[in-house]
């Protein structure tokens, strides 16, 4: 059936609207990317000449190098601790009915609604009281709190999607509970655990607001170092760093999606 002019027009407008929205979403990324390859020292747009020198400068800058290293240390600890705590809590939440379970769930998921600067400020005051302000510990614990909801969510969804008959089958074949956990439950949960960890790591590595409060000069993470840099200088090395950030994170997510199937982890497929 031939389509009418009206339908064609409507289709065109629809496609245009989608394109505009997509363009709007990627606009900041595009601007930053173009600025990163700008040869001039000022953050100008559009650039007159092209160069990679800001990438070289960003990589060579000592504060960025330290920030990157600090970020990796904080991220490794915080996402691992968050995974352990979050996985155990997700298990408890999925397997047992207990008093106040709803309340505990609400508290553990509360960082989703509490502003990051509040969490950061809280940890700063706490750390000042016990004299921990200069160490990694306060940064790590602050990040654990911030990423925990995402880990719990990720593991909880995987657990809900795990058909319990696998565990019952293993038990019926004579496997005691610990053996069931190690040979059946954990292997089947692995994608959820890995992607939970990965989410936590990406969030922790990129976290800025709370980190600004709880990091010291010695422990500042990359986003904090970038903020301190941009307060003093305004050259495109920031943009270059941003591009590296985006590419790195995107590569991780694409990798995770290809090997673990993030889609599976983000949806509850069936309810028990």
């Amino acid at each position, binding site marked *: 059936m031939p389509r009418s002019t009206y339908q064609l027009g409507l289709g065109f407008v629809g496609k245009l609207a989608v394109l505009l929205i997509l363009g709007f979403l990627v606009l900041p990324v595009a601007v930053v990317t173009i600025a990163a390859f700008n040869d001039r020292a000022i953050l100008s747009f559009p650039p007159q000449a092209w160069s990679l020198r800001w990438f070289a400068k960003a990589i060579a800058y000592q504060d960025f190098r330290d920030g990157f290293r600090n970020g990796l240390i904080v991220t490794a600890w915080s996402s691992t601790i968050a995974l352990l705590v979050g996985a155990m809590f997700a298990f408890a939440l999925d397997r047992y009915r207990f008093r106040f379970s709803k309340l505990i769930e609400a508290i553990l998921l509360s960082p989703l609604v509490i502003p990051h600067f509040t969490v950061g400020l809280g940890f700063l005051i706490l750390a000042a009281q016990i004299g921990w302000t200069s160490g990694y510990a306060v940064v790590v614990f602050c990040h654990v709190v911030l990423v925990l909801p995402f880990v719990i969510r990720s593991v909880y969804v995987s657990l809900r999607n795990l058909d319990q008959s696998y565990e019952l089958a293993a*038990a*019926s074949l*004579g496997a005691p509970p610990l053996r069931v956990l190690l040979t059946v439950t954990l292997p089947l949960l692995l994608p959820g655990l890995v992607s939970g960890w990965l989410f936590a790591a990406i969030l922790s590595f990129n976290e800025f607001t709370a980190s600004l409060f709880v990091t010291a000069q010695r422990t500042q993470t990359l986003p904090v170092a970038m903020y301190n840099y941009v307060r003093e200088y305004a050259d495109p090395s920031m943009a270059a760093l941003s591009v590296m950030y985006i590419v790195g994170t995107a590569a991780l997510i694409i990798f995770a999606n290809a090997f673990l199937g993030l889609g599976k982890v983000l949806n509850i497929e069936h309810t028990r």
Partner: protein
Amino acid sequence: MNILADTSAAAQTSGFAAGDDVAVRFDSVTKRFGEAVALREVSLSVRRGEFMTLLGPSGCGKTTLLNLAAGFFSPDGGDIRIGGERVNDVPTYKREIGMMFQNYALFPHMSLADNIAYGLKVRRVPKKERDRRVEEVLALVRLTGLEGRKPRQLSGGQQQRVALARALVINPTVLLLDEPFSALDKNLRASMQVELREIQRKLKVTTIFVTHDQGEALSLSDRLAVMSEGCIRQLGTPEEIYRRPCDRFVASFVGDANVLRGTLDGLDGAHAVVAVGVARVKVPASPLRGVAASAPVDLFVRPEQLQMVDADEPCATSGTVAAQVYQGGHVDLYIDCAESVRDRLLVRSAGHDAMTRWPIGAQVGISIGDDDAVAFATG
């Protein structure tokens, strides 16, 4: 009509087998889920090597009873014994059971061979013997050569065989089957049923089989327990259940049944006589105890026990042919009949000449074979 057994007495005797011979015994088992009572004081003994079916509609408690045998939860009252040992507080993994799940629950991250070997590894069976036993059981379920496949690379029927092999390889005291055929298409289901029964007979393994499919239950079981609302309504051989249902529920749930209005003529020992039209039908007396003579009763008759005769012959009732359904091996005729309690009467005729002899719209007389009818008080 001369071999009429009192059904409830039959159920009594077959329900309590000699202690030595019992593999699994449920003793007044009660199970509640919150407010809901899933099982009410259910007692059942499964003999060694027996194929026992728990049959009933969903929510009747059959799966709960199976899960109690498996130890997935414990009863709120009563005892469960496996091989003479009280297992109420014995966890699943110490019960030596083989269980086959509705969705098979094959471990998706393990190969077929690893799935089957799982129970042997847990029992620390040496590798050499393990391999031999896996090979043996694979031959038994005719899957030799597929050892390396992952479950998702197998067809539904193959997955089911793996699940059976995995449950059997540990030589369980009792094999528990939870609606294992429900995921298979009709043709495959029939051949798998035959296969399962053959293997079960060969290994003489005590089996408890849960299903809501009465055809499956009748064709596979040594004995079956018909359940509803958390109770066993009747326990007996498939023939006993089909021919001598003890109450309305069993009569309607197992097999097709026509229900005709009749009146009780009188009780005479083990028999009662029910009048339908000019016919007198002998039925078992036990379901009618306490019913006054000439009280109205409902007569349950199987479709193959009804015969059609010419309208002018003396017969139980009469009606008009409303529909004919050709079923290949037999013909189903639906008759509009005033005496029928529910809808139309269903008459099953073996030869297809019934279709030409009794065309749609024809007046027919219906007579009832003097066998295999049961009656219950109207109500």
